[in-house]
């Protein structure tokens, strides 16, 4: 069956796979943002010994290979690993963790740069207004929201596109941890290249659609509050 037929016929399994992909990647993006954005802002606004080294490491971690991240999380969550008690290896939670670890540094590093640039522009104004430290961070994050949204999309795109990490920690279990990218890898390995390409196009379309929606929201918000 071709991918087109699968979509047109509203194949329930395909929708389940697409749904799981979105849940895993959106959750991972959410958790990576909740940790990465304040962390990036904090680094942008504070001076401490080793700061430059930390920034270099953080920027470098934007290029973490998904397979290495997956392996690290795998060893952590394995029953024989330090967090084995949780028993969440080969579950969607493990996949969320792996993807969050993968894109956390991307979100933190880009946020750091954006906030640092914005801080240079806002510094005098915010200090003159007597803003507390936390209010400064909140104000900068809010005023950088359009740039931060692009950062989120970059993180989301990276997580949605990766296969190495979720394959290792999810196990590509049919109906449970199988997502778009692992399905594509599986169909490729089975020699179903046409189906794999079709699913790839579905994945690309979904990522495009989400970006288009984000763009529309941004346009609307910018007209009303920019």
């Amino acid at each position, binding site marked *: 069956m071709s991918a087109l037929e699968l979509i047109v016929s509203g194949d329930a399994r395909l929708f389940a796979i697409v749904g799981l992909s979105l849940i895993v990647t959106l959750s991972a993006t959410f958790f990576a943002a909740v940790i990465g954005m304040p962390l990036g802002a904090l680094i942008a606004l504070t001076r401490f010994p080793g700061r430059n080294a930390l920034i270099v490491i953080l920027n470098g971690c934007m290029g973490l290979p998904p397979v290495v991240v997956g392996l690290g999380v795998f060893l952590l969550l394995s029953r024989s690993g330090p967090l084995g008690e949780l028993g969440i290896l080969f579950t*969607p939670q493990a996949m969320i963790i792996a993807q969050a670890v993968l894109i956390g540094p991307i979100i933190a590093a880009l946020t750091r740069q954006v906030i640092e640039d914005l801080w240079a522009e806002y510094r005098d104004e915010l200090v003159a207004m007597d803003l507390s430290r936390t209010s400064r961070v909140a104000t900068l994050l809010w005023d950088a929201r359009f740039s931060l949204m692009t950062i989120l999309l970059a993180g989301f795109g990276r997580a949605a596109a990766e296969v190495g990490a979720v394959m290792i920690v999810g196990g590509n279990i049919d109906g449970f941890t199988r997502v778009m990218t692992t399905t594509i890898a599986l169909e490729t390995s089975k020699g179903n*290249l046409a189906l794999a390409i079709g699913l790839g196009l579905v994945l690309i379309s979904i990522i495009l659609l989400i970006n288009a929606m984000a763009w529309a929201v941004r346009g609307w918000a910018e007209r009303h509050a920019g």
Partner: protein
Amino acid sequence: MRLRPILIAAFLAIGTATLPASAQDKSIVVASTTSTQDSGLFGFILPKFKAKTGIDVKVIAQGTGQALDTGRRGDADVVFVHAKAQEEKFVADGFGVKRYPVMYNDFVLIGPKADPAGIKGGKDIVVGLKAINDKASPFVSRGDKSGTHSAELNLWKAASLDPAGTKPGWYREIGQGMGAALNTAGAMLGYVLSDRGTWISFKNKGDLQIAVEGDKRLFNQYGIILVNPTKHAHVKKELGQAFIDWVVSGEGQQAIRDYKIDGQQLFFPNAGTGS
């Protein structure tokens, strides 16, 4: 700004929705091989098992070496693989409870239609491999410690050759699954050892065909083992044993027998008689 708490709540809801109720969750994890998975066998027999027992079987398809390692780490409840020596060692080392023979299929030597080694139609795998070596024809090896890989290495040994050790240019280890190995062989017009199940269900045959088949040495026995609960206390021994009991039962064996692609039976159950 006022949207944010709502968004946060929504995401948290989504996040927790994916948490399975692990306490009363009636499922087991089976570490198995890519060849079993890629052949579609699990897709055929597992729904029957689930219908009878209500137990979800989550299959992780890996190479045999990795699947046994997954069991050794305690990350699976059952291993279902095909490398007898490794399986017996797994049990002997105390990681598995008992090995049950389940079924067999056979390996076939696949090669390009042009047949540069001139071995098409052969019945003797040793003769075939020697010819590939003599003609230095491209040969794709899984190179991933899978059951198929170790079977391949044993066959080279039977032919008194050691390309994995001497690494001649025509011997290419790709470190990937069966389907990928077949794709690679098709692309570089090389020979490759495949299990028959994956070969039959492999859709991208291109210019490949069977070169050698039918040799007794190409026999491929599958075994199933419960991971030892005394090593890993969380192993679901009742559910896992229930799966093993079903697979080797008359009903499970019949299900295996019934699985066909294009009218060809892929696996031959032999729980009672096999090794």
